[in-house]
């Protein structure tokens, strides 16, 4: 049986075809009138986009989306690289100014989370050192991590740090040094330096080597000191009154005993508050500087290949992020897509089989 397009039924079944075409099958006049009565559909005046096939749309949209993504990545890369350049420039030009600024601002109150320098960012720069207020009591604490050249330098610089502390009227609270072969040498010192000289101390200690890290914390103690002083005055007044009361003649023994207890209690409190006040003043008078000297080599700095390299790197990061988001979306949506495809396929198959059954081909 011929089963190709070349099947010429006209010649093979000539008689049948002729008879089939002779079967009267014209539409009756009533039907023709009914269809004619429909007329012409109203033409919509609204603008319609030309129809585009799925394949054509994919051919246009996929490159367009890719182009948009790459453009966005390029813009992101350029913007990021320029902003990072500005940050670097700012960090290179302002430490001295920041130093002055911090000095003028520190009298207003507590300063927490003072600047932290990342490794290698201060190789050629003086560190930013917030200064304590000369008119307020403040708890000044600083952590300083400095890299020195080698083991010999480690010992020398440790001794030098101790000398600097003593020269400035302070003392070394603790010191520990370790120099193990094959490992970086470490020297940890806790220095107490008068607050009045702390800025000088920080500058001189920073000059011992390369500053790797610096943390400065200033906590205002003025309120605490004032409260303690008011409490001391109150207690002194109370003691004076109690003493005067006890010296009066003719007091009942129980009253006298009660007053005596109150007096002892007030004296104890006064001693405690006075001690706390002295401790606070001592804390405010001496800053605490934790100095770490190390011979540890610097971590390999990020390779800077200029603005173009930074921009390209940022753009690639952006593209990688976009790819990750797309992958996540695909993972989340893929079950739904599979279900939708199966539903579509199922409905289509059902309708086709139903049509076959209705037309007698099943």
């Amino acid at each position, binding site marked *: 049986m011929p*089963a190709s397009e070349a*099947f010429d039924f006209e010649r093979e079944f000539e008689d049948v075809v002729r*008879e*089939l075409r002779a*079967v009267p099958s014209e539409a009756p006049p009533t039907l023709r009138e009914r*269809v004619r009565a429909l007329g*012409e*559909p109203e033409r919509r005046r609204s603008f319609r986009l030309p129809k585009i096939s799925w394949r054509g749309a994919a051919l246009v949209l996929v490159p367009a989306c890719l182009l948009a993504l790459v453009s966005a990545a390029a813009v992101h890369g350029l913007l990021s690289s320029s902003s990072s350049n500005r940050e670097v420039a700012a960090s290179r030009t302002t430490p001295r100014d920041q130093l002055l600024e911090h000095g003028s601002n520190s009298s207003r109150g507590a300063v927490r989370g003072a600047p932290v320098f990342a490794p290698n960012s201060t190789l050629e720069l003086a560190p930013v050192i917030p200064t304590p207020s000369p008119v307020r009591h403040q708890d000044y604490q600083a952590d300083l991590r400095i890299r020195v050249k080698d083991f010999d330098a480690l010992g020398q610089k440790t001794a030098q740090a101790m000398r600097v502390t003593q020269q400035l009227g302070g003392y070394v609270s603790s010191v520990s040094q370790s120099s193990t072969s094959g490992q970086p040498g470490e020297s940890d010192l806790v220095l107490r330096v008068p607050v009045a000289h702390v800025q000088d101390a920080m500058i001189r200690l920073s000059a011992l080597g390369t500053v790797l890290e610096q943390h400065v914390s200033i906590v205002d103690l003025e309120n605490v000191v004032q409260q303690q002083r008011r409490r001391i005055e109150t207690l002194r007044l109370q003691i004076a009154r109690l003493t005067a009361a006890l010296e009066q003649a003719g007091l009942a023994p129980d009253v006298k005993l009660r007053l005596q207890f109150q007096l002892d209690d007030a004296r104890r409190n006064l001693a405690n508050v006075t001690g706390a006040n002295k401790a606070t003043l001592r804390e405010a008078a001496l800053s605490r500087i934790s100095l770490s000297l190390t011979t540890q080599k610097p971590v390999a700095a990020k390779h800077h290949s200029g603005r173009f390299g930074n921009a390209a790197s940022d753009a690639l990061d952006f593209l990688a992020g976009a790819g990750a988001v797309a992958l996540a979306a695909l993972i989340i949506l893929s079950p739904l897509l599979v279900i939708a495809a199966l539903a579509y396929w199922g409905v289509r198959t059902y309708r086709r089989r139903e049509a076959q059954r209705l*037309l007698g081909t099943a």
Partner: protein
Amino acid sequence: MKSVNAVSTTLPGLGVARPTFASVAESELDAVHRYLLFLTGNRAVAEDLTGETFEKAFRSWRRFDPRRGTPRAWLCRIARSVALDHFRSEDRRRRREERYARDVEASEEPGLGEGVIASALHELSPAEREVVALRVLLDLDGPSTARLLGISQTACSTRLSRALKRLEERMSDARV
């Protein structure tokens, strides 16, 4: 095939001639009626379905794209959908009647006329009559017919060949 471009407009910016609905309806009415007559085997039903087909085509005329096929193929697709809906509803009706009134018999109106060819056509299945109508009477080409029926071109040719052979056999049997 009759020309349908006597009255036509051109799609803006595309240069593709688009006939008017009225001209298409005038030229394709007989073809659609013939197709539905062969598919249903019932003249009254074919008439109703033809009217329904053109009403449906009228409503969706703006969706017709002459670049994707001839008006005849587009109308036949609509006609087929309308006919399948009719067969579905008939199927449901028949089942209902079989369930509640088994003795009710459907009256079959001779739609394809009298004579050897008509009785031979009635012995074919609707699907066979359909492919005969599309290929022999409406002169649709193989690819268009296959696309319309949702089958491959090979299957379409096979179905047509089998239908014509059966017709030939029935006719020769009837004449003997």
